[in-house]
């Protein structure tokens, strides 16, 4: 894997932008940060179901 860009949200090194699939995206975002931003994934405040 040639990780050349970083997620603009969390700084994780990624191969391509999870939003546009481009390896040179200036607004690159990783899969996790994109899903959280889109509301497709919820941040879990606790792991024991409260």
């Amino acid at each position: 894997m040639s990780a050349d860009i970083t997620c603009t949200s969390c700084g994780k090194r990624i191969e391509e932008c999870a939003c546009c699939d481009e390896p040179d995206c200036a607004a690159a975002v990783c899969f996790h940060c994109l899903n959280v931003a889109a509301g497709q994934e919820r941040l879990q405040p606790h792991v024991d179901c409260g």
Partner: protein
Amino acid sequence: MSPRAAWRLESLGFAKVYDYVAGKLDWMAAGLPTEGTNAQRPRAGQVARADVPTCGLGEGLGAVRDRVRGQGWDAVVVVNDERVVLGLLRSKELAQDSGLTIEQAMRPGPSTFRPFVAIAEMARFMTEHDLDSSPITTSDGRLVGLLLRSDAVRESQTE
């Protein structure tokens, strides 16, 4: 709803209570109805074009391009028999050599979004990343439609 919420409703006297094990996001991703303030906001699945042309992996690019452009489109979604999204061809991919197969020409495994994503968010993502279109799919990858940036931006401005 969560198992605890289901048990609580039963304790309040509701007789028909079900625990949707896959969770709320999966429920919304399937395009099923929701209630509450946010339910009134336009979402990707409502604005996406369900009549987007589709094709299969083994078809020829030249024939697909003629068909798609004849229908007034500049994009086609590659699906299997279950209507699961396998690839996408936008104008750049459609402009390649006519002798290629769809499998050779397509952009494989394109990023997809779920139908419940707010249209304002979609407009922002698509503008920020210069995306002309984005496939909208259910949690199990089935095509709901193709969201065009022009539609997303227009709808988000009327919110």
